[in-house]
C-alpha cells in the first residue's frame, strides 16, 4: 500500500509540474512554426490560391509576425476557423494568434480574456442586395430574409438595427462566408450582411458583380484586428509592434523594395534607424533580434503595400483606403513612435 501512495504522490507532483506552461514566444520558437488562425476563406483577406498557398491581407500579417519571430515568412501553419470556433481555438492554445477579421469589442477584450493587438482594418457592417430588387436603403428591408454569419458581432448589430428601425426580418444563419455566398446567390436570402470589406470581397468573386449593390448604410463600427490570449504580454507586444512597424514603415517610406538598402547602413532619419535596428537595440527589448522589423517588412511589404496587393483599388475587391489611410493623409492608421 505504501508503494501505491508513493506512486500516487509522484503522479500528482508530475502532473502539477506539467501545468506551468511556457510562454507563447518560446513555444513558437521551439515549434519552428507560427499557428495562425484565419478565416475559412474570404478573398483578399485570407484564402488559399490555386497552388494552395494562403494569401490575403490577414495572411500577410501572420507572415510578417512569423518573419519577425522565426525569420521565415512561410513558417506559418494556417488554421481555418469559423466565427464560432475562432475564440475557442485561441483560448485553448490551438493557435498562437488570430488574424481573422475579428472586431475589437469591450467584452471580447475583458470578459473573454483576449487582447487585441491593434487594428489592421477599420470597417463597418453593410448590406448587399441584388440590384434587381430595386432597394436603395437598408430601411426598406422590412420583412426581408437576411443571411448572416452566426457567432459574429454582425449578428448583434443586425438585431439592433432592425429593432431600432422597428422593422422585421428573417435571419438565415450560415456558418462561413462561402455558405453565405451560396445561399445569397441561390436567392435563399434577399440580403447578405457582413462587414463592408467582406461584402466587397465577396462581390468581387461573383460572376456579375454589377448585378449586386452594397447599400449606403453602414450600421456599426467594426475595428478589425489581430487577437492574442490575455496574460502573455510579451507575445502580445510582438504582434502589436509588428503591426505598428508595418504602419510606421509606410509612413516613413520604407517598402519591401528599399528595406534591405535602408537597413544596410544607418540613414539620416533616426526613426528609420531605430525601426530597422541600425541604431539602438529595440528588438532586444521584446526578446527578438535587431533585424526583426526588416524581416517583417520584407515578408509582404509595409501596411500600404499589403493593402494594395490584396484588397486595394487595383484588385477585384477594389477597396479604397478611406479610414485606413495613414493619419497624415486623413485616415486612422497611426503607429505610436518607435523609441
Amino acid at each position, binding site marked *: 500500500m505504501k508503494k501505491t501512495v508513493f506512486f500516487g504522490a509522484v503522479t500528482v507532483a508530475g*502532473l502539477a509540474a506539467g501545468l506551468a*506552461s511556457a510562454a507563447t514566444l518560446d513555444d513558437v520558437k521551439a515549434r519552428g512554426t507560427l499557428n495562425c488562425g484565419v478565416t475559412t476563406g474570404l478573398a483578399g483577406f485570407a484564402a488559399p490560391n490555386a497552388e494552395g498557398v494562403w494569401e490575403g491581407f490577414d495572411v500577410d500579417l501572420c507572415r510578417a509576425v512569423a518573419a519577425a519571430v522565426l525569420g521565415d515568412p512561410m513558417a506559418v501553419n494556417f488554421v481555418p476557423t469559423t466565427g464560432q470556433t475562432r475564440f475557442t481555438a485561441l483560448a485553448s492554445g490551438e493557435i498562437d494568434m488570430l488574424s481573422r477579421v475579428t472586431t475589437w469589442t469591450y467584452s471580447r477584450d475583458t470578459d473573454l480574456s483576449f487582447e487585441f493587438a491593434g487594428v489592421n482594418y477599420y470597417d463597418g457592417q453593410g448590406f448587399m442586395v441584388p440590384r434587381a430588387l430595386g432597394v436603395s436603403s437598408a430601411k426598406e428591408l422590412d420583412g*426581408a430574409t437576411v443571411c448572416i454569419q*452566426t457567432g459574429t458581432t454582425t449578428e448583434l448589430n443586425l438585431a*439592433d438595427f432592425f*429593432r431600432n428601425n422597428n422593422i422585421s426580418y428573417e435571419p*438565415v444563419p450560415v456558418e462561413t462566408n462561402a455558405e453565405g455566398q451560396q445561399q445569397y446567390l441561390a436567392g*435563399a436570402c434577399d440580403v447578405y450582411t457582413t462587414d463592408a470589406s467582406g461584402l466587397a470581397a465577396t462581390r468581387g468573386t461573383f460572376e456579375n458583380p454589377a448585378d449586386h449593390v452594397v447599400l449606403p448604410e453602414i450600421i456599426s463600427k467594426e475595428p478589425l484586428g489581430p487577437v492574442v490570449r490575455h496574460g502573455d504580454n510579451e507575445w502580445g507586444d510582438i504582434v502589436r509592434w509588428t503591426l505598428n512597424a508595418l504602419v510606421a514603415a509606410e509612413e516613413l517610406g520604407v517598402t519591401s523594395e528599399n528595406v534591405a538598402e535602408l537597413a544596410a547602413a544607418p540613414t539620416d532619419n533616426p526613426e528609420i534607424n531605430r525601426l530597422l535596428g541600425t541604431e539602438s537595440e529595440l528588438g532586444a527589448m521584446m526578446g527578438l533580434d535587431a533585424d526583426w522589423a526588416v524581416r517583417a517588412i520584407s515578408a509582404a511589404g509595409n501596411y500600404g503595400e499589403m493593402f494594395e496587393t490584396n484588397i486595394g483599388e487595383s484588385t477585384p475587391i477594389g477597396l479604397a483606403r478611406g479610414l485606413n489611410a495613414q493619419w497624415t493623409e486623413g485616415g486612422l492608421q497611426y503607429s505610436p513612435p518607435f523609441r
Partner: protein
Amino acid sequence: MTSLTDPHKPAFRLSQLIYDTRYRSMTIQVVAMILLLTAFGWLINNTVENLGALGKDFDFSFLGSRAGYDINQMLIEYDNSMTHGRAALVGILNTLLVAFLGCITATIIGVFVGVLRLSKNWIVSRLMAVYVEGFRNVPLLLWIILIYAVMSESMPRPNDFRGEDPSASMILGDSVAITNRGIYIPRIGFSNSLSGNEAVAPIEGATPLATGAIDWILVFGALALSVIAVRYVRKKATITQEATGVRPTTWYWQIAILVIPVLIVSLFLGLTFSSPYLKGFNFTEGTHLRNSLIALWIALSLYTGAFIAEIVRSGILSVSKGQSEAAFALGLRPSWTMNLVILPQALRVIIPPLISQFLNLTKNSSLAIAVGYMDVRATLGGITINQTGRELEGMLLLGLFYLALSLLISSLMNVYNNSKKLKER
C-alpha cells in the same frame, strides 16, 4: 480433559493482498478506485488551473443577461431583448420538435420498409433493400446537406410567384407555396379565439384570426375524450362478441364519435385556414416550414428509418415460422396474421434496439449546425457561447440537456417495453 485450542491462525502478511484469492479482488478494486479518483482529480484540477490561468471564473449568471440575437424559428415568444436562458429554451424546443417529428416519421418509414423488405414481390423487396443499404451506408451529414442544397438551389424563389405570368405557382388550390426558403402551408386560426389574443385580419376583408393555447387545448381535449369513447365502444363490441359470437358493426359509430365533437368545438371557435400570400420580400401568413427544418427532418427520418427497417425485419424473422403456419391453418388472412400474431411477438425483439435508434436520432439532431437550424446547440451551444465566452458552462449545460433528454426518452420507452415484453410468471 484437554481443552481444545483454536487451530493456529497464521499472521496476516502483505503478500496475501496479491496472492490470496480472498483479498486479491479487493486489492484490485482499491487500486482501480485510486487510479480513477486520481484521473478525475487531475481533470478537475486541470480545468480549475487552466480557467485560473485564463483569468476566467465558473459562473452561470450569463443565462440571465440579454441575448441580443434573433432566432428565426420560435415555438415560444422570443425577441432579442430577452435573456440567453430564454434563447436556450427556444433552442431546446426546436430540438424537441425535430426529434419528435423525426422519431414519428422514422418509425412509420421503418415499419413499412421492414415489412415490405420481406415481401415475396421481388421488385418491392429489392427496392427496399436499395433504400436501406443506400441510407444506412452514407453519412447522415451528407443527406442533410444534400436535401438542403436541393431545396435552396432548385426550388423557385418567392419572386418567381409574382407578376402577370409567374414562372412558379402555388399548389393545392393556392394554399401551399414551395419556395427555396422553405414550404409555406396554411395556418390554422380561430376567429372566436378564447385565448385573449388580439385577432388579426391577414388581408383586408378577411376574417380576423388568432391562435392560442386555450383553443388548442379545447380541440385536443375533445379529441382525447372521443378516443376514450371509441375505446369504450370497441370494448363493448368485444364483450358482445364473446357473449354471442357475433361482433356488432360499429365502425360508423367510431367515426362519428371521433369526428363530430372535434368538429363542433372547431366550429364554435371559428376554425379558419389562412393561406400564405406574397407580401414584400416573402410569403406572409401561413406557417413557414424552413428549409433547415425540412432538410433535417427528412434526412433524420430517412436515415434512422433505414436502421429501424432492419430492426423490424429482424424482429419479424425472429418469430418462429410455426406461428404464421398455425395462423394460416386457423384461416386468418395474411394481414391479420401480421397484425395479430407476428407483430405483437416481434415487438418484444424490436423495442429494445428501437430505443437506441430514438436516442441516436435525438442526438443526431445536433447536426443541425450544417444547415443553420436553430436547435439548442446553435443557440446555447453556439451563439450564446460565442457572445459570452462561457464555453465550459455552455457545453456542460448542453451535455446535461442531451443526457436528461436521452434518459427521459429511454425511461419512457422502457415503460412501453415492460408492457409489451414476455410476462414470466
